[in-house]
């Protein structure tokens, strides 16, 4: 009796497992196919792309779309700008947030609660777009690279993340022992805290970098100079604003371009997303770690 029962249950479990495999498979395909399609379409023959054929593997491989894309000077300007904003923005963000997060993690610091409160309040209330614009205008930072580097690099959320990390992974006793040996706060920070915080350093750097790579809002609001435009604004121009371009009927010269435009769009999407998409699988554990640390807080 008992054995039969066990057997029946396990047959049912097999069915459940199968169901789960299928369901998860559906989720995976749903997530993967739209991205895969872009990659495949970008190197496929434009005739297939324009006919809307469902492509699972590249067809009639050629790289003309990439050649067109490479010939766009604005793409390279955007790429260069985004690289610049991402690199220096991340550097700036790290230099500002890491020390602050550590200092606020110190239980023995007078007024840390008040300082924390002042910072956290900005997560829930802001002055709004125009007052911020007015301030930035007053500082003469509209249409400058500096602004696009620093704006958005410092986030209170990241500071809280660092603070949580330091509180849980840098033992109080360690600092006490070090201070008895005459180690100053600065020295302790540089030679003990930083080496122990490599994980959080990576997490924060990745968060800031991805934010910079993908954001367009600040550039949209605070720049009018196309030489300062990041990649995402160029993409906006190409992918969203010129959506009607296929219908603009100016023969011959435009005809080839028209043929190509869908493929060019796919190629540019691939080019712009390539760095993150390629690096992400290797850095996945850091991103996940960031979410975990963030969840401790709440």
């Amino acid at each position, binding site marked *: 009796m008992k054995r039969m029962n066990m057997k029946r249950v396990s047959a049912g479990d097999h069915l459940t497992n199968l169901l789960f495999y299928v369901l998860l498979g559906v*989720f995976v395909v749903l997530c993967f196919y739209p991205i895969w399609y872009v990659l495949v379409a970008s190197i496929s023959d434009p005739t297939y792309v324009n006919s809307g054929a469902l492509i699972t593997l590249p067809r009639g491989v050629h790289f003309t779309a990439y050649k067109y894309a490479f010939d766009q000077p604005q793409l390279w300007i955007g790429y260069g700008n985004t690289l610049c904003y991402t690199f220096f923005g991340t550097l700036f963000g790290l230099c500002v947030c890491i020390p602050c997060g550590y200092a606020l993690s110190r239980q023995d610091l007078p007024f840390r609660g008040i300082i924390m409160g002042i910072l956290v309040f900005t997560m*829930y209330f802001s002055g709004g777009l125009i007052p911020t614009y007015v301030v930035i205008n007053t500082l003469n930072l509209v249409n400058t690279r500096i602004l696009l580097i620093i704006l958005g690099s410092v986030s209170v959320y990241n500071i809280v993340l660092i603070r949580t990390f330091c509180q849980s992974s840098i033992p109080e006793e360690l600092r006490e022992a070090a201070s008895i040996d005459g180690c100053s706060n600065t020295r302790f920070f540089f030679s003990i805290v930083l080496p122990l915080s490599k994980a959080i350093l990576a997490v924060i750097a990745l968060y800031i970098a991805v934010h910079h790579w993908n954001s367009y809002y600040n550039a949209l609001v605070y720049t009018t100079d196309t030489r300062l435009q990041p990649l995402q604004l160029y993409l906006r121009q190409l992918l969203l604003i010129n959506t009607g371009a296929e219908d603009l009927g100016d023969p011959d010269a435009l005809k080839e371009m028209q043929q190509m435009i869908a493929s060019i769009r796919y190629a540019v999407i691939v080019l712009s997303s390539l760095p993150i998409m390629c690096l992400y699988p290797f850095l996945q554990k850091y991103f996940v770690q960031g979410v975990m640390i963030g969840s401790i807080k709440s």
Partner: protein
Amino acid sequence: MQPSVKRKHRQQTIRRMIDNRALYLMILPAFLYILIFHYWPMYGVQIAFRNFNFADGITGSKWVGMKWFNYFFHSNNFSTLVRNTLILSFYDLLAGFPVPILLALIMNAVPSRRFRKVSQTITYLPHFISVIVLVGMMNSMFSVNSGWVSTIVRALGGTPTYIMGEAKYFRHVYVWSGVWQQMGWNSIIYLAALTSIDPGLHEAAMIDGAGKLRRIISIDLPGILPTMSIMLILRFGSIMSLGFDKVYSMQNALNYSVSEVLSTHIYKMGIQSTKYSYSAAVSLFNNVINFIMLVTVNRISGKLSGNSLW
């Protein structure tokens, strides 16, 4: 006796502050940043009550009281904007909440470790796509002539329409593309909660003859209930702070009637039409509602379940 204790205490505090002056120096850059880019604009919020122009500056412009608020509350836009914002937010909240939980439960229950790892990597991937690229991808895939979605629709015997260009589809596309993009990423936190469930519970249930499905419903689901409630609070708290980026990217002349929300209105009025004070008034209204929402939701949930953010 009492005052001298107090004084001693104060002296100790000052002593500690001086000893730790380096720590204050470490806080200073971030503090200055927040002061300049967050608190200064908060001080500048007063332009919502003034007739602001750049020549006179924040405090020099003429005081007009509630003029811009009255103007906004009585304009035709008001109800449409608030309605569009609320509907889009609520829809997003309701649709985006259960899917990551479902995904996490399934991932956790799949026996093959390898398949689980691969599916994690792939379902997190869309999170890293930028808004512009996402909307560009949708424009292409829903294109009537060349989009692969249209091809599928045709193959199933339907007639494809350009989904991105019709107002009635806007909300669905906005919300479900968001679900697509974030479901994997948002499932991380539930997966973490699932792995912290005591395996002994599962073993005991198995001995009692509970099937896999039964165990998921009776053990896993209750196990992640606290996480679920916190995530729900977080979502409710930000109900009016609908992101600008994606709505603005998806907006076109054809879906304007449902896609114009507070944040896009604030941008257009402030930056494009240079109605600074009016725009500042609308965003102040939005921020105040937001803040009240967050505090209220947090207080209620703190009373009900003991889960609160502060």
